[in-house]
């Protein structure tokens, strides 16, 4: 058993790819690097487990890029490398991607993302992180060769805070799950509360069992009896182990927001404005399911490369990266405003959707939150507060 990884190079059945070696065309080759994550079983059987999140988004974007490419004589192709949960991503990267690709869309855990970014072979490669939400990767652990497509936790919790401020629901009861991710989400909530002058009246770790199906009725009612009054219960449970059971079971009638209830997300099935219906339809037709956030992230990643390659008429790293981080770069992301990268941390600035399971409640930035440059920068870490220093990041 010396084989520690398996590489899947899926056949792409699209007619467009037959033209990959069309003469005179400029080839833009993109790698998609994903590691399968071990996921806990879902809380209930309501929603099917979605596998291959991200892949279909990247494929759809390749098709879109190629429709423009047909006229501009550019051919975009996608090669997929899917590493099993126990596999060695660095090994796959060094063997199959290094020196062969300039652009790599990644769907990896945060630590693995940076591990790949720090490989010698990644120096001349631009990584498009279509999966992580970690604030650390946009601050002290930032990397100059990584662009982040999905909104960070801070952008999400700022979006929620703006909405709650508008509603004047200023007193929050914070419930935090047991995982490291939950703690990071709670940190982001606390930062947003401070930023928008909200009050966290109490913070409590969730310590009950995760088999809440049986005991939720009694557990949650007891758990949520706190001394202070509050307007909303903010839950930090990124894996969805208990958060769904809070709503309607709290001691006093209060809405649930955060990772469950009203959630902040880059994409949601209830989103239909600004042409979103069109891409929702096209995605569903292709994938046979709704578009997930990682699909949207991968879609934006590949579309960014397409937009930059079209405008620069290039397939090379430097001109494309320069263009992506320049002022004229404007990415259409079906959110009613052009998207662009923040040059101080390589985060894609974008509106954040606030969604209930079956209705889109609001889109942040909420009207009235102003910014001298772009209202989108009212979400997340703005330039003056960034902890990302490229010079240090290279050390």
């Amino acid at each position: 058993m010396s084989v520690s990884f398996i590489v899947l190079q899926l056949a792409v059945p699209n007619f467009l790819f037959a033209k990959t070696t069309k003469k005179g065309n400029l080839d833009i080759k993109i790698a998609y690097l994903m590691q399968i994550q071990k996921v806990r079983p879902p809380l209930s059987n309501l929603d099917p487990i979605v596998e291959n999140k991200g892949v279909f988004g990247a494929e759809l974007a390749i098709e879109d890029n190629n429709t423009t490419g047909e006229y501009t004589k550019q051919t975009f192709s996608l090669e997929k490398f899917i590493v099993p949960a126990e596999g060695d991503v660095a090994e796959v990267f060094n063997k199959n991607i290094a020196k062969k690709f300039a652009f790599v869309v990644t769907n990896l855990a945060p630590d693995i993302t940076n591990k790949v970014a720090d490989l010698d072979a990644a120096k001349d490669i631009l990584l498009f992180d279509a999966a992580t939400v970690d604030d650390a990767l946009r601050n002290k652990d930032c990397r100059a060769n990584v662009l982040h497509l999905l909104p960070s936790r801070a952008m999400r919790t700022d979006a929620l805070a703006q909405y709650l401020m508008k509603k004047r629901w200023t007193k929050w009861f914070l419930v935090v799950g047991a995982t490291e991710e939950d703690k990071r989400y709670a940190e982001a909530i606390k930062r947003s509360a401070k930023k928008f002058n909200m009050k966290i009246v109490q913070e409590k770790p969730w310590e009950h069992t995760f088999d809440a199906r049986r005991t939720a009725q009694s557990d949650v009612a007891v758990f949520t009896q706190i001394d202070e009054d509050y307007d909303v219960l903010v839950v930090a449970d990124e894996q969805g182990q208990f958060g769904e059971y809070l709503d309607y079971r709290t001691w006093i009638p209060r809405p649930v927001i955060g990772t469950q209830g009203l959630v902040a997300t880059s994409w949601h099935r209830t989103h239909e404005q600004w042409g979103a219906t069109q891409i929702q339809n096209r995605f569903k037709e292709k994938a046979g399911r709704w578009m997930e956030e990682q699909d949207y992230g991968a879609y934006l990643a590949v579309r960014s490369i397409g937009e930059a390659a079209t405008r620069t008429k290039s397939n090379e790293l430097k001109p494309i990266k320069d263009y992506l981080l320049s002022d004229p770069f404007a990415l259409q992301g079906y959110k009613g405003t052009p998207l662009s990268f923040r040059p101080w941390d390589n985060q894609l600035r974008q509106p954040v959707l606030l969604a209930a399971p079956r209705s889109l409640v609001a889109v942040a930035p909420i009207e009235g939150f102003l910014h001298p440059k772009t209202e989108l920068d009212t979400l997340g870490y703005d330039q003056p507060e960034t902890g990302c220093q490229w010079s240090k990041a290279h050390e």
Partner: protein
Amino acid sequence: MNKQVISSVLSLILAASAQAETVFVTLEKDNALALIDPVEGELIKTVEIGQRPRGIVVSPDNKVLYIAVSDDNTVKMIDAETLKEIGTLPSSDDPETFALNPKGDRLYVSNEDDSMVTVIDIAKKKVIKQIKVGVEPEGITVSPDNRWVISASETTNMLHWIDAKTNEIVENTLVDARPRAVTFTADSKFAWATSEMGSTLTIVDANTKQILKRITFEIQGVAKDKVQPVGVVIDKESKLGYVALGPANRVAVVNAQTYEVEKYLLVGQRVWNLAFSPDQKRLYTTNGVSNDISIIDLDSQTVTKSVGVGNFPWGVAVKP
């Protein structure tokens, strides 16, 4: 008998009061059509029209209104006097915008979901051809000399030049992100295309299909990402063009000779589509968020009035 008398009296009254023109506005969320008297600045009435009406065009003889009722997947033909439905056209799925040729016998429909342009023979009510274009075609126009049909595809970022005789794409022009609307100058020499996400207006030479000029809009106190050009019209003399700037809540006045932006006129919220009065003394704008239309007096270049019309005004057309 009685009915006839009443209706002829009614139409007399209508004719008398409609010495000026009638402005028709489709209301996307009300499934209705609003009729406005722009001289009085009043909403005359609102009539039900079908599911999610958007694009609207008046026939060259001013007798027929064509209205895309997107969720009914058809383009309806409405008698412009009686407002009765007189037919439907086979537009294919989810028609949004469309264009009529100058003679008024061909309709070109953008089918956003299918990346197609459907060409319809109006007299026969038949599809002549479906032309494959880029992803999410939206803006569409026919040149006044009937030579070219331009379809703009939002995701492919292209203007597709379709030869009106052969219904084939002959050339393509790459423009800035998310092209929305396109129109020709009266002499058919130049096409003006707006890019909603690119924040620009592109002027293209119809002869070479090359870009002549790319115009950006800078408005004091308005962030660049709020400037989202959509509807565009040019006056008959090709002196001035007008560009609706979406959530910037302004219409830009562009000199069609020098391509300088001369002025920004503050209108309602999320200004969407534009139409001239027949004498080109006024310009009407649909404002999707403030649910009204703005009336602009073009001699003085001032916004004179706004008229509440209903939910989500989208398309606008004018009949003398």
